[in-house]
């Protein structure tokens, strides 16, 4: 009885859901999250994609379910060649791309400087969004049209608070709002209110949403990212071997798209056998525990599909401790510094990096500048994931920085977080 009361108080959710969530949390050794609550509790780069997760569930018109399967194999160009310099991944084949190129009329938002910029953060509790925020501030700083003071609000994963935050921002008379959502649906009405007042909104959380309340999105395409990661892994394995796959929180766009991308790619590689797919929730400790268990189950694991560097580290450590690091190749992960540092020390297991750039924050502000100047923009601007070949990974790794850090060479030192 007390237990249930307590859970209610903590989760602030419907009692059943809360009870279930606790049960699930209880059975994992690492912070586990019930999939139902995923978008709001995603701990890590999770954050970056949590918004995306919300997007898919928001307007049914946005995510055409038929497009990807047929469109992808034919239109998606080959994975970046491992020998090339950093290469932008191909664009234009994901579900998002179908509406992302839609032009947006920005005439109603044109206004004279100084512009008062606001950042409405759905949360500021993971390193990726902290970097995205810093990129946004940096970009704003190089446009004199923006007023010096940037208002930042943090909803701390509380969708209701984000609604209130944005209402406050409207009352304070800001001129432009960049944001990343806790829950797209929850803030849609208040975003529409902003637009009605002539205040443009740009989503910079990495997700994509085609809705009336969003003028434009700076987004990262999870399917393309997963596809590039899978192709690179398949190439390095020479098209054969037994692999395991580690995905983020079940049900998020990141997990769904990456999984689909992997399976689509594997159709062309019949000799690669996917032994197991697990959800490590962007949690290094959890990914490590799961991998320890899988290493007991499978005597031979030759490849690992893990697009999130943060989980790749935990997995690689499990392989290392089991003395099996020699026999395995890891797929590219992202530019999470802990993973870059790990690869710098163990270059033989890796296959390069496919970035998940926090510079989405910067791209979003650039988009906002155009909007405020009344220039035409599109509904979405893709922040390209970039392939970094193995030789260059060690250069990107910042060995003296914390693990919980993002490679960000183009972000000036004074804008970097504390380290």
């Amino acid at each position, binding site marked *: 009885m007390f237990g249930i009361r307590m859970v209610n108080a903590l989760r602030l959710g419907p009692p059943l859901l809360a009870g279930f969530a606790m049960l699930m949390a*209880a059975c994992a050794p690492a*912070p586990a999250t019930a999939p139902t609550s995923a978008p709001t509790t995603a701990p890590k780069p999770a954050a970056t994609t949590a918004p995306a997760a919300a997007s898919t569930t928001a307007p049914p018109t946005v995510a055409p379910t038929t497009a990807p399967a047929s469109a992808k194999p034919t239109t998606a160009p080959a994975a970046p060649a491992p020998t090339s310099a950093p290469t932008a991944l191909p664009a234009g084949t994901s579900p998002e791309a179908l509406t992302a190129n839609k032009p947006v009329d920005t005439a109603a938002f044109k206004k004279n400087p100084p512009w008062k910029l606001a950042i409405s953060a759905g949360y500021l509790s993971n390193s990726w969004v902290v970097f995205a925020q810093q990129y946004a501030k940096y970009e704003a700083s190089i446009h004199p049209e923006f007023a010096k003071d940037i208002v930042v609000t943090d909803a701390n994963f509380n969708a209701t608070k984000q609604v209130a935050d944005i209402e406050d921002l409207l009352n304070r008379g800001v001129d432009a709002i960049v944001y990343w959502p806790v829950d797209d649906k929850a803030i849609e009405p208040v975003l529409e209110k902003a637009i009605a007042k002539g205040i443009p909104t740009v989503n910079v959380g990495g997700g994509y949403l085609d809705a009336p309340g969003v003028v434009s999105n700076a987004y990262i395409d999870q399917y393309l990212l997963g596809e590039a990661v899978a192709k690179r892994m398949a190439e390095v394995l020479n098209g054969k071997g037994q692999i395991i796959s580690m995905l983020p929180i079940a049900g998020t766009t990141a997990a769904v798209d990456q999984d689909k991308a992997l399976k689509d790619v594997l159709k062309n590689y019949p000799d690669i056998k996917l032994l197991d797919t697990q959800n490590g929730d962007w949690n290094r400790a959890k990914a490590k525990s799961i991998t320890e268990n899988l290493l*007991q189950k499978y005597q031979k694991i030759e490849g690992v599909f893990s697009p999130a560097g943060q989980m790749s580290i935990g997995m690689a450590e499990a392989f290392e401790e089991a003395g099996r690091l020699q026999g395995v190749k890891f797929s590219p992960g992202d530019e999470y510094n802990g993973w870059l540092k790990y690869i710098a020390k163990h270059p033989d297991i890796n296959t390069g990096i496919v970035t998940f750039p926090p510079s989405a924050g910067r791209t979003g502000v650039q988009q906002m500048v155009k909007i405020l100047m009344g220039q035409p923009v599109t509904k979405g601007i893709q922040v390209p994931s970039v392939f970094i070949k193995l030789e260059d990974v060690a250069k990107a790794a910042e060995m003296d920085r*914390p693990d919980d850090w993002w490679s960000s060479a183009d972000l000036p030192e004074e804008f970097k977080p504390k380290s």
Partner: protein
Amino acid sequence: MTVAITVQAQPSTGRERPASLLGTTRSFVERRAIWLVLLVLIGCAGLLSPVFLNPINLFNIVRQSAVVGIASIGVTLVMITRGVDLSVGAVISLAAVLGAAVMGGQDGNVAQAVAMTLLVGTLVGAINGLLIALRGLPPFILTLGMAVAVQGSNLLYTGGTAYGVVAPGYRDVVNQRLGPVPLLVLIFAAVLLVGLLIQNGTLFGRRLYLVGGNPEAARLSGVNVSRTLFLAYTCSGFTAALAGLVLLARSGVSSNFAGQGYEFDALAAVVLGGTTFEGGKGGIGGTLAGVLILLVAFNLVNILGLNFNAQLVLKGSIIIGAAALYRLAQRRD
């Protein structure tokens, strides 16, 4: 263990079970029932997967359980007093981040980092204890508030990215194996042993049961209730910080929220192990079984290779099933 139970029964005012031989025997079986459940679960797991009983796998399970297990020891002490400590998850996060920050990637700073981290964790526990013991604040809401405040301090301190670099030597040492036995397993065992000694071999341990069983009676019989509560929460802060240091060793630091959710894991393990919200009974021994049940469930669903959704259903079922079996075993007696 039986000593504690007998003492516990003495000051009870009839509401508690009588201090008879029967009562003692009953509690003995009650306490062992959870182990029976664990054995049944392990037996089933062994039948379902040949890999499960592989010694390396079993050691892995114990090693994976070290973080929750160590934190659960302090939580058990608190819950014996009818309290609860929801701040352990936040303290684990803080400890992992603070430990790495003080280490600054240098092996020379490890001792300082460990000392500092344990001190801060203990201090958080002590503040919990002081406010509960002296001001009589309800532990549930106080420790919940403390969790929020600690998490906030952590974010303020780090500025949003988990600031700090763990010393490589620290991880190498703590993660090593002595023969087939991971050092983490031995650390866990040592903390467990100390916890059992405190619980069963000290005056403080016996007072925990007195206070939890009937605080008023405990006070009337001359027990310093405030001091006992204070010490219990202080212990919980200490073990949570220790758990954070273990997490830091096991997985490095990668998040300000590394400990998120552990308060629920610990709570589930403690309650599953027979230390209830009513206080006055249970103990660390049962908690160990509770922790292992949770971790065996986690290991088993991985080893069976179920898909994620089926995993959740099975994990949930194992926990409910374990609780039900446990009840059944208690009733039968």
